[in-house]
């Protein structure tokens, strides 16, 4: 037997008993939707999503491609600036040293350090530390594997810095519903019906939705406000409609994104006399793509931008036509809160 034959034979024997699961398609679709959800629900809900899925360790163990990593990089850099890059938080040269120089007002590189040291460091620098734990075999337990904003970003004292800490075991106490309360941000407190945030009131929502009982501030740039509405009984970390209010710096980043949509050939639709884009967006929010998240976005008033997203699940339930009608109705109902 020559070596090619022998190798072929060995390889055949190796995988002869392997068959793809009949549920593969289902898993792929679920995963596809979840990835979107994780990005859209901003960083702090990441663990909730990862735990709720109950995935094998390997799923969260790929910094380069992992939707979790994408989720972390997304809200801060991607959603705002349209430069989504999972991997912006990879360790830089400076991160490998033992001492960390901390210029004032600049987020230090903390990737690769131990979580305890990093928390002290960030705390002393005046930052609010947010923690996300991710199950991974790639880094020693307790190591910071990603940060947001990225090292070198200017951020004033008091700003939130989110760090992702490697953990190797999903402890049972981390699973929902506890994870929901501990990891979903409640930056804006109890919003009642959730319809008023960031100086904006949402006049219309589909009848079957209720407030998702979480809210985030500045996850999509400074200043931004976000929350979501869900169908009753939906699992944690999942949304049906999510709304983001962009103001100040965040609003100008959104405006840039809107110009980008025009550049990609999107035709504006009319919302209450204003030019809005009703498009399907990639996870980073900067590209128009088939099968993306259905989104309507526009500038409501000078310095106030709005983005309303519909989850692919909810869109599928309504059908594209009805989904677009609902999005336009929601958009028409959004007004400055006076």
């Amino acid at each position, binding site marked *: 037997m020559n070596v090619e034959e022998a190798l072929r*034979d060995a390889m055949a024997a*190796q*995988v002869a008993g392997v068959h793809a699961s009949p549920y593969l398609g289902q898993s792929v679709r679920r995963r596809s939707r979840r990835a979107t959800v994780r990005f859209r629900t901003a960083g702090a809900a990441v663990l909730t999503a990862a735990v709720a899925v109950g995935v094998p360790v390997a*799923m969260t163990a*790929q910094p380069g491609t992992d939707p979790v990593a994408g989720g972390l990089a997304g809200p801060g850099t991607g959603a705002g600036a349209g430069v989504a890059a999972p991997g912006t938080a990879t360790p830089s040269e400076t991160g490998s040293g033992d001492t960390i120089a901390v210029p004032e007002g600049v987020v230090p590189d903390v990737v690769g350090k131990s979580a305890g040291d990093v928390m002290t460091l960030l705390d002393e620098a005046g930052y609010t530390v947010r923690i996300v734990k991710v199950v991974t075999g790639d880094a020693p337990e307790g190591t910071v594997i990603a940060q947001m904003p990225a090292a070198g970003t200017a951020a004033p004292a008091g700003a939130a810095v989110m760090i992702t800490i490697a953990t190797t075991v999903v402890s049972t106490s981390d699973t929902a519903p506890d994870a929901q309360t501990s990891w979903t941000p409640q930056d804006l407190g109890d919003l009642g019906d959730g319809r008023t945030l960031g100086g904006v009131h949402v006049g219309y929502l589909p009848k079957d939705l209720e407030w998702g009982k979480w809210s985030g501030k500045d996850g999509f740039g400074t200043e931004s406000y976000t929350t979501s509405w869900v169908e009753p009984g939906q699992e944690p970390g999942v949304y049906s409609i999510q709304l983001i209010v962009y103001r100040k710096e965040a609003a100008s980043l959104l405006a840039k994104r809107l110009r980008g949509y025009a550049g990609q050939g999107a035709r504006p639709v009319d919302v209450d006399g204003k030019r809005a884009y009703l498009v399907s967006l990639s996870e980073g929010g900067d590209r128009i793509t088939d*099968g993306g998240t259905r989104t309507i976005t526009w500038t409501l008033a000078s310095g106030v931008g709005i983005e309303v997203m519909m989850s692919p699940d909810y869109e599928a339930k309504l059908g594209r036509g009805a989904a677009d009608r609902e999005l336009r109705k929601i958009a028409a109902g959004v007004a400055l809160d006076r």
Partner: protein
Amino acid sequence: MTDEDEAAFDEFLAARSTALLRTAILVCGASAVDAEDMVQSALEKVYRHWPRIRHDNPEAYARRVVVNGAISRARRRKVIREITFAQPPETPVESPDLGLREVLLAELRKLPARMRAVLVLRYWEDLSEAETAALLGCSVGTVKSQAARGLARVRARMENLEGASA
């Protein structure tokens, strides 16, 4: 994504997913569970672009995503060392070739990920040198030299073994 797209994606999975999974196992040297996870994440990419790629050789696209994913995963995690291979159940334990197969597979796992991918694509998937080169994004010359070096290493190990048992 239309209903027709969805149905076509299901058909595609039914026809191709087992082959993709097997290739992934061989290229990244991982267990079936690990490889399935990887194939899922590769297929998620395929699914995301499905309406665009379905009429344009989706199998080649999927294979490229799977193989590149497998290579980078093998590099990143060095799964080759961490995961012990389970022998497939239908391989009789008393098979005289069992030793040889194990030795060959062990040698295969020791190769650099890209070299192993070349061998898997050439001798498992039966792709031509040109197809392999296109898939891996390298030249035909690279495929030839990687295949030759990989085979030489496996051959050396095989002859060594046969020499010992003779």
